[in-house]
Structures are given as structure tokens and as C-alpha cells.
């Protein structure tokens, strides 16, 4: 069964998961998202909670409602998402990571950046 942690409300965690998928191009810009019922079934979540998650993505300008047709990925959604995810990483995760790298004495040359590409 899908698991949800206690870091944030469940609708927020679903919105985050869907945002990660949008960032990976699934679905691509201009395409439709799965319906509320499909998402509820996939993630075993109450449809009202799914609707809240979608509304959170609408509020962030990542998807839009087309009357009678469901939710669609907005033009430029991926770039907007990439921008905010980068900001988030630089402000929240990077300071911790940098401190750890410094503590371990790891520099850019040790990280073998290109290896897994």
C-alpha cells in the first residue's frame, strides 16, 4: 500500500509526488492529468483529498482546470517547477549537505559528477 509519512498533510505529499512526476515530464505540458477517480484508485486516497492536492498544484500555476475536461499541465509548468525546486534545494538542503561535505573533507573532484550520467 502507498505509504505516507508524518512530515506533511497527505494532500501535500500527493501534490509533491505529482510535482516530481511533472518535473520528469509525466504528463508533458499541455496534456491531461489522470482523473480524480484514477488518482484516488492509484494512490488509495479519498477523492476529496486528491482534489485538494490538485488544487494545490493549480494554486502554484502548474496545472489548470478546463471546464468539463479535467486538469491539464500548463505551458511553462516544468520550467516553473524546476526553478522553485532549485531554490528549495539551494536554501534548505544544500547548507546541510555542504556542511557534511566539508566535515568529510570532500571536494568537487571527489564526487565523480559525470559517472552516472
Amino acid at each position, binding site marked *: *500500500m*502507498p505509504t*505516507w*509519512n*508524518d*512530515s*506533511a*498533510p*497527505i*494532500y501535500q505529499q500527493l501534490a509533491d509526488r505529482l510535482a516530481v512526476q511533472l518535473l520528469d515530464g509525466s504528463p508533458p505540458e499541455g496534456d491531461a492529468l489522470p482523473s480524480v*477517480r484514477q488518482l*484516488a*484508485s492509484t*494512490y*488509495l*486516497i*479519498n*477523492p*476529496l*483529498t486528491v482534489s*485538494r492536492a490538485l488544487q494545490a498544484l493549480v494554486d502554484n500555476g502548474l496545472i489548470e482546470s478546463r471546464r468539463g475536461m479535467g486538469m491539464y499541465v500548463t505551458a511553462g509548468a516544468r520550467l516553473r517547477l524546476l526553478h522553485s525546486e532549485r531554490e528549495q534545494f539551494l536554501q534548505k538542503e544544500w547548507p546541510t549537505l555542504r556542511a557534511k561535505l566539508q566535515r568529510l573533507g570532500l571536494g568537487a573532484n571527489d564526487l565523480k559528477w559525470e559517472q552516472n550520467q
Partner: protein
Amino acid sequence: MSTTATANLIEAKDLTLRYGRSKVALERASFSIPKGRVVGLLGHNGAGKTSLMKALVGLLPGEGELSVLGLDPRRQRGALLEQLCYIPDVAVLPRWAKVSELMTLMSGLQPRFSAQRARDLLKRTSVAEGDRVKNLSKGMVVQVHLALIAAIDARLMILDEPTLGLDVISRKGFYEMLIDEWCDGERSVLISTHQVEEVESLLSDVMMLDEGRLVLNISLEDIDQRFTALSHDATLADEFAAAHPLLRYRQSGGRSAVIFDGAPPAALAGMGERIRPSLVDLFMALTRNPALHSKSA
């Protein structure tokens, strides 16, 4: 009265239920269940869950006001049972029967039963119409039961511990059927269970019973607004305890957490990290487990 009946599928006001002369199973409970909801009924054994569900289907008389689908469950039980689906906690299917025979039986008993719909629902399971109940696993029997019951064209389903004794695969199949085949925004379901963590994401609302009292009746959305959970370093335990939170508990990874009903004291807000108050933690905070308290009583 007819206007409230159309707005809410269930309406209870000061509902009190008694067993025998003195034992109170439910004390002055007031609540309503609108359409399109999945309501979890949580409580320890003996908290009053089964009594409440029995009263809703007219099997237990009560004091106070109770309206289900706009009907009085005691006086209009026949009409009510045609319009709702109910699986009691003691439900059994006859072991000798074939699934197809149960469908014939249902067609004769229930005017709103659709055999075609039952067949469609059964296709989700590994059960065939020719199978006999006695040859099915416990999980399969529950799925057959749900398929038969969900094939009734009704607006309200009442399930008393439907997943009791099922393994995790069967429970998942059950939840999937519930979400896919029952939740359409119009119909509601009231479901009692001890699998609090598993059902949390399925629910739109939760009702908690503690020794016959309805101690919480809230939507999952409002839980995030009303309750505050703060994760904090274990060394700050004394400061947080002094603020009398609803519950203190240990998290995995050596940190501690507290739940406040409402906003935490301003001094503490900055000392902890806000997390999601989970249903199981709220359940622990708001109900007493009689099995744990009986020794000291």
C-alpha cells in the same frame, strides 16, 4: 424534516443507546453524515461502534433523534433496508452455497440488487461464480460479500469491521474496491475498523468513540487545521511536557513529538518542527484503551 433528510444521509441528535437497564453503549451523540463521504468510526473494543451501527439500521432502539436516509430506522426499517447496504461484524455467508446461488438469493431479497453489477464487481476478484463459499479463503469471502452488497443501488453503506482477520493483500483489494466502485461523490460509507493507519488516507471524515462518548467528529481536512503536532529534540521534553499537550510520543530516530489541540504556546512554536498529526496518534490521545486501564481500576 424532509429538507435535512436530503442534505444529510444520517442525522443524529442526542442519540443515547442502552444495553439492559443500566449499561450505556452510546451517550448523547450528535452528528450528521452528508453525501459523498467516507467516514471512519474508530474506537476500542466496547466503545460503542457496533451498537451505533445497529441503531442506524434499526436493530437497536435509542433515545433522542435519529434519521437515516430521511427515515426512522426503528419504525421504517423495511423501507430503510431496501436503500442501504449493511455488513455486520458477525456477517457470514452460507458455506454450502455457490456464489451464483447467492446472487439469485440477493435478486429475490433485494429489489435494488443488480446481478450484472455484482458480476462486474466479482471480475475484480479471483472468485468465479461457480465457486462454493466453503472453498474460498477468508479474504475472498469478504470480497464476495462486498461485491454482493455494493451491487445494491443505495446511497449509504455501513460496514462493521470488514477487514477483521484479513491479510494485507486482501485488505488492499478491499480498499481498492471501495474507492473504485463505491466512492462517486454521491454515496457515503460508514466503516468501523481497527486498521487506523491503513484507512487514514481513504477517509474524508473520522468519528472517534471513547467508552460511549463521541469524542471527535471531524473532517480529515480540519484535523490539519485544528491540531498541531510538533517534533522536537528529546532534550526539550520537559519544556514541552510543561505545556500540557494532548499527547507526547516518541518518533522513530530518537526524536519526540507532541500534539496540541489548537495552537501551541508561542514560546514552544519555535522550538519544534511542525509535522502532520496522524490519525493513530490522535486516536491514542483521545481514547482510553480499556485493556490497558483495567488493571489499575
